[in-house]
Structure formats: structure tokens, C-alpha cells
């Protein structure tokens, strides 16, 4: 995925400020990528090239790092982010059932985004709330003791929220 031209200037600015923040130290490479991903929800190719230039590192090293860690994505993510914990504690409490059902409801596999670009769905290992297992997060909000019934409700709410927002947009 590449960015439209008008976004390039913004990108240049953002990257300059991020690289400056870490004083272009190579130990901060992962952190710089995290910051970019946080802003764009993914890593645009241009960003990688620019960072390589600014930090004086081979582009290959950046691609290596960006593809090594699961947390980085080179493709854009959906508007909403659903994450099912599949850590050990959640697994023995049947997180698999939640993953299967969510996959089926959304029609996508973990790691993918719905075709309308609304919802991304991922799995993660232990988010530190094992007492609530199985746990999912929806846009960083925790939902504990998940069952399929609750999951359906969460999905309805999420989709409902979406339409409500859209309605507001339409009115405006």
C-alpha cells in the first residue's frame, strides 16, 4: 500500500519528529516503527524508506524488522480492532470457541480485515487479565468471561455504533 501524494509531506514531518525524538539511535528503531504504526495503524512503505534514509540504515534491515515482529503490519487495518486473547489461561477456558465464532461471524480469519474496512480481527497472547478469561478487547476496551452469546452482542453493539456514527455524519 502506498500513500497519496498529499500525505507524503505529513509523513515526512511525522518521521522527522519521531527520528529526532530518539536521536536516530539504532536501539530505538523498533520504537520508531511502533510510533509510526500507532499513528497510521500500519507501516506505509514510504515510511520505511524514509526512516532508513534518516537513520542511515539499509532498507532491507527495516523490512526485516518490520516483517519479523507480528505486531507490525504492512497493510492498513480496519476502523475497529477486535482482539481475542489466546494466551494459555484463556485457551484452557475455551478461547478457541470464541475465535472460531468470531471468524465465522466476520467472515475473515485472524489477522485479516473485513472487506468493508470496518473491523480487523487478531489474536494475541495474554493481555494480563487472565482472571477474566476468555478475554477479548474491542478498540482497547476489555470484555471478560466471553461466551458466544456475549460475543454476538458485542458485535451488534459495534455495528450499531457504526451506524449511529454514520447517521450523525449523514445529518451533518
Amino acid at each position, binding site marked *: 500500500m502506498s500513500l497519496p501524494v498529499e500525505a507524503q509531506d505529513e509523513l515526512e514531518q511525522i518521521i522527522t519528529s519521531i527520528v529526532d525524538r530518539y536521536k536516530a539511535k*539504532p*536501539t*530505538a*528503531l*523498533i*520504537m520508531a516503527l*511502533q510510533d509510526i504504526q500507532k499513528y497510521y495503524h500500519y507501516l506505509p512503505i514510504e515510511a520505511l524508506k524514509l526512516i532508513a534514509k534518516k537513520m542511515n*540504515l539499509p532498507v532491507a*534491515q527495516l523490512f*526485516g*524488522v518490520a516483517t*519479523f*515482529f*507480528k*505486531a*507490525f503490519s504492512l497493510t492498513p487495518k480496519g476502523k475497529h480492532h477486535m482482539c481475542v486473547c*489466546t*494466551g*494459555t*489461561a*484463556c*485457551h*484452557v*477456558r*475455551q478461547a478457541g*470457541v470464541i475465535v*472460531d*465464532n468470531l471468524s*465465522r*461471524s466476520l467472515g475473515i480469519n485472524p489477522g485479516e480485515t473485513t472487506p468493508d474496512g470496518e473491523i480487523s480481527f487478531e489474536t*494475541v*497472547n*495474554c*493481555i*494480563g*487479565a*487472565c*482472571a*477474566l*478469561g476468555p*478475554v477479548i478487547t474491542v478498540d482497547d476496551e*476489555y470484555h*471478560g468471561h466471553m*461466551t*458466544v*452469546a456475549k460475543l*454476538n452482542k458485542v458485535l451488534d453493539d459495534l455495528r450499531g455504533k457504526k451506524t449511529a456514527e454514520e447517521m450523525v455524519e449523514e445529518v451533518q
Partner: protein
Amino acid sequence: MNNNKFTSPEDLNRLRERLVKQREEGRIIITVCAGTGCLACGCEAVTAAFREALKENQLEDKVEIRTTGCHGFCERGPLVVLRPEGTFYQRVKPADAKLIVEQTIKHGKLVNKLLYRDPQTKEVIVKEDDIPFYSKQMRLIFGMNGHMDPTSINDYIALGGYQALAKALLTMTPEQVIDEVKKSGLRGRGGGGYHAGKKWASCRRAKGEPKYVICNADEGDPGAFMDRSLLEGNPHGVIEGMVIGAFAIGSHDGYVYVRNEYPLAVKNLNIAVDAAREHGFLGDNIFGSSFNFDIDVSRGGGAFVCGESTALMASLEGKIGEPRAKYVHTVDAGLWDKPSNLNNVETWANVPLIIEKGADWYSRIGTASSKGTKVFALTGKINNTGLVEVPMGITLREIIFDIGGGPPKGKKFKAVQTGGPSGGTLVVETREPKVHESLVAHGDIRDEEEVVSLLDLPVDFDELTKVGSMMGSGGMIVMDQDSCMVDVAKYFLNFLQEESCGKCTPCREGLRITLEILTRISEGKGQMEDLDTLEEISQVMIDTCLCQLGGSAPNPVLSTIRYFRQEYLAHIVEKRCPAGVCKELVSHAIDETCTGCHVCFSVCPTNAIIGQTKTLHVIDQDACIQCGACYQLCRFDSIKRVKRGEGDAIQYVAKEKWHPPVKKKAAAVA
């Protein structure tokens, strides 16, 4: 004091005395746990409600609210403890804040509904310290969490913080510090259990400058969160340990490698590092001595393999996190090829304690070869999920039953898994699995194996290794009768395969094949030879993998085969999953205990459930996709997971036996 920096221990003591006095002035303190577990339960709203309630009652300047790190009892969160009395309120909702302020704080009356009730004895317990979950622990490292706001360095100082640093820096030589740590018997808490003092000494001896001191907060073990809770709740303890270690080793640069998935830990750690620097515990001329040391916090990418020492260092250098062969140790050539000393978060947190109280005191806790305490993340099928800190040498039984309260809903305890993905599953008791009685086929193979009981095994680095598991980082996952051991092995292997860096062949290919075989077995397509093949591949991996990710990956497989061979055989020979977990081998069926509550009806994604309110429900066996949605929902345990293809038989029997629910039951349903 000149610009906040401490230049002498006297300054520190003066401040401490002042803070302690302030604390003793009898102000009531409402401590609200704000660890990740309680945050997830909505403790922020509770804190806000307390603020509101105090304002309403004009108590703002008499009562203090302190948000602390994790208290450990995550199961009962959000937790609120009123100090100095120690009144313990659990599962507090925002609406309860007003009640607590008006009843307990103003009138000294307890709010009964929020008190802890022992699930076994039904006894109501008021004080935090009297609750069995806490009273059987030894919270040396973790106990401070509940008494301080992690973002306040003054709280840490009031509790005696940085005294050990003053002692080490101003009254001891680096060699003496190393000797003390050696004598204490402190072993690394990150998994390997290497003697910390020995590692420090090698690093001190190593040639090359500068030397690095690194804290491993990668915590990739899926189901462990003690390092995170330590960093979130007591970051200064870890920092103090690192400064002492750096002094002993002769290092001036430190790194903490913490995963980005731990935002609160990163935040609190950064606040603490800044505060420590401001107070002169980090930076140049610490305590007015000639010793300089500073710490950089580096957020890692959160890959399991990056917890391995050489991979971590590669990743710190901004490279791909792949391990390298370790014929040259990292203490000689680690980060940037300089001598580097890596220790785990919990290991560092132990250091101030050892220096302050002395190696003699410390080494009295624990067993002959394992000293001190260990924090475990007790999770899975257990009543009291949470973090527990216990002295080494305590038995698994005490942890799981006395502290953990055993599996919930009276289910049978089956096994415990320690050491995370590289650890092993230990059987402790095997019981008749959950299969409908009328269908339990008593094959001959069933009675061969004797039950091995390891519940009374002491928790100790060497004892756990001896029985095929390991201490690991401290994840402890309890499994009950509903957990399938083939599935557990498959789960870990799947995790490891995803996390393997793929650099060396035995790990990359070995994991792939092992997972393939386990998947085959879980689908009922396994053969008897598979068990031998698994053992053979495992041996090759143990012997030849480059790093311990691959080298210890066979542990979950070998230990489950060792203790649960029967269960593997049931999958292979009988094509049956005794615990009813492996999807391909089970059918869902409703038996005669169905009350006709109709709850399951609408949750089925394929509309396979047939029935009306107050009638027996039936699952259309052809339409069912075994998704388990209805099973999770049924409150009467009427949905059974039986051997694939035997669902109709169960439902046939159910039809014969079923009666419409009597009034009493109907009332219960309503």
C-alpha cells in the same frame, strides 16, 4: 538538598523519616488496585466515584486515594483496601464507593456485601491479611505493590526504598556486593535459574568497555504476567536492583527491554526512571559517589524468541530478533559485542532485599538449592486466579488448593502446567473423564497405567526439572477434567511454531512436523507409530536446536505423553477425546437434564437446535458444526460432548427419560 538530588544517605533518611511520620498521622487511605486485571474490570470508574463521594462528604483533605499496582487477587477485582485498618473490599463497583465512604469511613461500619467470603468455609473475612489467598503467601517482592502509588517515588522511599543502594554504594565494594549476592543463592527468575552472583562476577571479569546491564522484561510466556505487574506496581524496586548490579559489575549503561504490549508498565517505568534521575539515584555521581549509571527504556516488538538473551540483544541493536550460537557468552560479548549482563525483572527486584537484609537472612528462605520466593501467575481452571508469591520449597498442593482454592465449580483437578511453552504438564491425579456414563467404553488399555501424584512436589528449580517440567518464568496453569492434554500440547506447539524465528532447521522443521502429528492425533487420524516418532523428533530437537526455544519445545509433548499416555491412546485407538475438547472427535448432544429453558436455541449459528420453551431440546446432529456455543451457555450442564457419532444415542435415551420440569425447577429457571 540541592535541586532534589540526594548526595548523602542522611538526606535520604531525613526525607524518609518525614514521609513515614506523614503516613503515620492516621489519615485514612483508600487504596484502589489499578493493575491491568483491575483496570480491565473498570477500576478507573471506581476511583472516580471515590473522588466524587469524598467531595460530596467534604472528606477530601482527610482521606487520601491511592491507586496502586496489582495486589495479586485479580479474580476479585476491582479491589479496594482501606488502610491503616486493612479492610478488604472486593468486586467493588462505582456505585459502591459512596456506600464505603458513608458507612465505613464516616461511621466505621462494614459494607457486608463487599466483604470476602471464603468459598469453602463460608466465613466472612474482613482484613486483607487474613484471607487465605494472602495469608499463605510470602510477599517479599510483591507485597509493596499494595502500599504504594507506583508513580510516586516518595511512596517508595517511605517504604525504605533506595536504602539498599545507599548501603551498597557507600559501605561496600563491588566485590562485596557480588559476594553477598552469591552467598544469598539468588538464581535467575527468567527461566534458566542461573546463579545471579556467578553471572555478575563473570561479567565484571570480562574484558571490554563499556559494559551493559540489561533487564529482560519481554515476558513472552502466554499466560504469565508477573514481570509486568512488578514493573507496573513497583518499578523503583527493579531500577534499584539494576543500579546495585551495575555498581557491582562496573557498568554505566543500562537497558530495560520491555514489550510494547505492556503500555502501563512502559509508562510507569518511564515515570520512575525520570524520578530516579531527578533524585540522583540515576545519572552522574549517584549519592555523591564517583559512580555513574543511567537506564534507557527500550520498547520491544513482543516476540517470544526475543526473550532469549542473544535475540534480545540483537533486537536492542535494531536488528531482527534472531538468536545466535552461544559458544561466546553474552557476559563476554553481548550487546554491541561488549560484555553484557542480562537478568529478569524479578531477579533484579530481589537484589535490594538481599543487600538490605543480608544474604544470611535471604538464604534462610527456600530449599537447599533454590532460595527466596517466586512469583507465579496462577491461572486456568482455578478459583483464585491471580499472582501469588510463595517461598521456594512450598508444595504444588499448597499453591493450587490452599492459595488457589482448587478448580471452580467442584470440577476435578487434573494437571498443572509450569514453565510456559517450554515447560511440562504434570499429572497429579487422573479421574474418569466427562463422558456420558452410559457410553464409557471400558477398553483394556484403560487400566494399565498407574496414577502418578506429584502434587506434593516442592517448588524448586531442580525438582521441577527432574520430573520433566521447569520453573520457567512462573506461569502456572491449572487444568481440570475438561482440559484435553493432546490439545494442550498442540496449543503450545502451535504457539512455538508461530514464534520460532526459523533460523535453524531442527526447530523450524521439527516444530512443523510435531504440530502436524499432534493435529492428526487430535483429529482422530493418528497411528500408534506417531508416539514414537514424536519422541524421536523431540530428542533430535533437544540435541541440536540453536536456542532454548527449540531445545525445550518438546517439553510439553514429552511430558504429556509421559503422564497422559492413556489420553493419547484414547485419541489414536478409540478415536475419542475423553475431555470432549478436540472438535473433530466430539458430538454435542442434549440429555434428559434439559429444562427447556430455550437459552441455547438462538445462539446456534447453524440453527441446529430444535425445541420450544419447556420441552426437551434436541441438536440436529447433521447440522451441528461443534462450535461449542451452546455448551458454554447451558447452565444445567445438559449439553454433553460425547464421542463423535454417538450424539443421537444420547438424545434417544434423553427422549425416553425426559419429564417436563417440576415447578421448583421452573422457578429456578425463571
